[in-house]
């Protein structure tokens, strides 16, 4: 039900009952390699193009989630997913194989939370018992589309970010009331498109920060709570620069948020010594880190309540070449452990 200006509260507390997380070789060397279900040691993943490998990531993640939950496609009503490639074809083609009623969504790197928010909303109002949602990105496929050929010797500035190769999907299930010890979604805040005039496609973090800050502030305003309510407030893929900028913006707005409760998936996923400049990014970044690492930590009891704010830069190579500024967005979903 609507609360405040742009937030939903999910009174029936939909359950994130099972997840599937896949990653590539670079993520296997990363800090969170232990939290992936399947890790591929080759970017091609046995396919003959990066785009097909991209689709393969999603298919494997989906099957993993199904197996964990012990369900088949028959038990699932809808699929709400997306990625970064033109016309989100990898996800659509995966949906073709799955034969699920499908809503393709594009929110750039915020797709993961856009999907989770919608899935939770549907389930909360009886729109389905099982809804599959997730987001995927493949480093080489995305580089190929948004930047230069992967073998081109261009120099990335320290503000650039490394697109995550990985897919994170979740099965959102209607809460039967017997779901103790499972993570549930309790509220979501849908962000506005914010553009404060940055144009450098090699500094997404800086461009996305205002959107992240705006959504976070809106969330606390709408739900009339303050940051202390959450053990962790985690952004999607702001990277070092965006993370600090956002924290600065929030403090400027006087939000009582503590440094230690504010993290970023793009900074969690890789080791310091990996050549990722400012950090990880891509639709798969927040998806893999949330559905893998963060939910595992919640089950361990490290966190009871978290707010996940996935940020997206809604640009295309075309808009960049036409000197358009970068429009950005962020969606927040609050996840709590069911006692």
């Amino acid at each position, binding site marked *: 039900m609507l609360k405040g200006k742009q937030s939903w509260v999910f009174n029936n507390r939909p359950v994130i009952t099972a997840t599937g997380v896949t990653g590539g070789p670079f993520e296997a060397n990363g800090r969170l390699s232990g939290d992936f279900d399947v890790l591929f040691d080759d970017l091609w993943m046995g396919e003959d193009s990066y785009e097909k490998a991209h689709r393969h990531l999603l298919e494997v993640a989906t099957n993993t989630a199904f197996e964990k939950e012990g369900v088949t496609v028959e038990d699932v009503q809808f699929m709400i997913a997306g990625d970064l490639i033109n016309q989100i074809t990898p996800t659509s083609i995966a949906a073709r194989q799955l034969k699920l009623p499908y809503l393709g969504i594009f929110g750039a790197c915020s797709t993961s939370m856009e999907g989770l928010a919608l899935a939770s909303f549907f389930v909360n109002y009886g729109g389905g018992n099982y809804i599959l949602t997730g987001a995927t990105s493949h480093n080489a496929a995305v580089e190929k589309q948004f930047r230069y*050929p992967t073998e081109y010797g261009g*120099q990335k500035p320290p503000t650039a970010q490394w697109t995550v190769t990985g897919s994170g999907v979740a099965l959102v299930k209607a809460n039967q009331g017997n779901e103790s010890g499972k993570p549930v979604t309790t509220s979501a805040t849908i962000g506005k498109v914010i553009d404060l005039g*940055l144009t450098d496609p090699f500094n997404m973090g800086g461009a996305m920060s205002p959107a992240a800050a705006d959504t976070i502030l809106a969330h606390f305003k709408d739900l009339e709570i303050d940051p202390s309510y959450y053990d962790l407030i985690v952004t999607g893929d702001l990277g070092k*620069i965006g993370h600090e*900028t956002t924290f600065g913006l929030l403090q400027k707005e006087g939000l009582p948020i503590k440094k230690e409760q504010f993290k970023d998936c793009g900074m969690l996923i890789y080791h310091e010594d990996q050549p990722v400049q400012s950090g990880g990014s891509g639709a798969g970044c927040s998806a893999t880190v949330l559905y893998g690492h963060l939910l595992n930590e919640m089950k361990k009891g490290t966190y009871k309540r978290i707010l996940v704010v996935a940020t997206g830069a809604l640009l295309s190579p075309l808009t960049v070449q036409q*000197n358009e500024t970068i429009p950005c967005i962020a969606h927040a979903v609050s996840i709590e452990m069911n006692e």
Partner: protein
Amino acid sequence: MGNKKPESKEVEQYKQFEKNFETKRPLFKNCLKAFLVGGFICMIGQAITYFYIYFFSFTEQTAGNPTVATMVFISMLLTGFGVYDRLGQFAGAGSAVPVTGFGNAVISAAIEHRTEGFVLGVGGNLFKLAGSVVLFGVFSAFVVALIKTILIKLGAI
């Protein structure tokens, strides 16, 4: 079209604010690396030139062509083995400005787009990056040469 809308106060403020958090590009370090790598590549080029002068019937003037071809060949190997992109991240302009960088731009595009087939993929994208170099090289050369020729014909030079 580059739409340069007058920037609002808010935009200006944010740009200033964001600057404080932006990691500065290590200008001096980058330039040094570019100098060393770029210089080294040119030295190799010089060695290849002398190689052709010594062992084949090329003069200082004519040895340039085989040298360039050889450099591009080497850059194909480095590109194909996935070395050149790492070199580029380290050296920046040091590996982009020499002709090997031109080769890398063409070859990387060709390799990248083979999955779209040899005609539409490789053929269509070959000069995706290097095309502008060819265009502006040829056109500026045309203008320069034209002006100079006319001046000569008029006996101005």
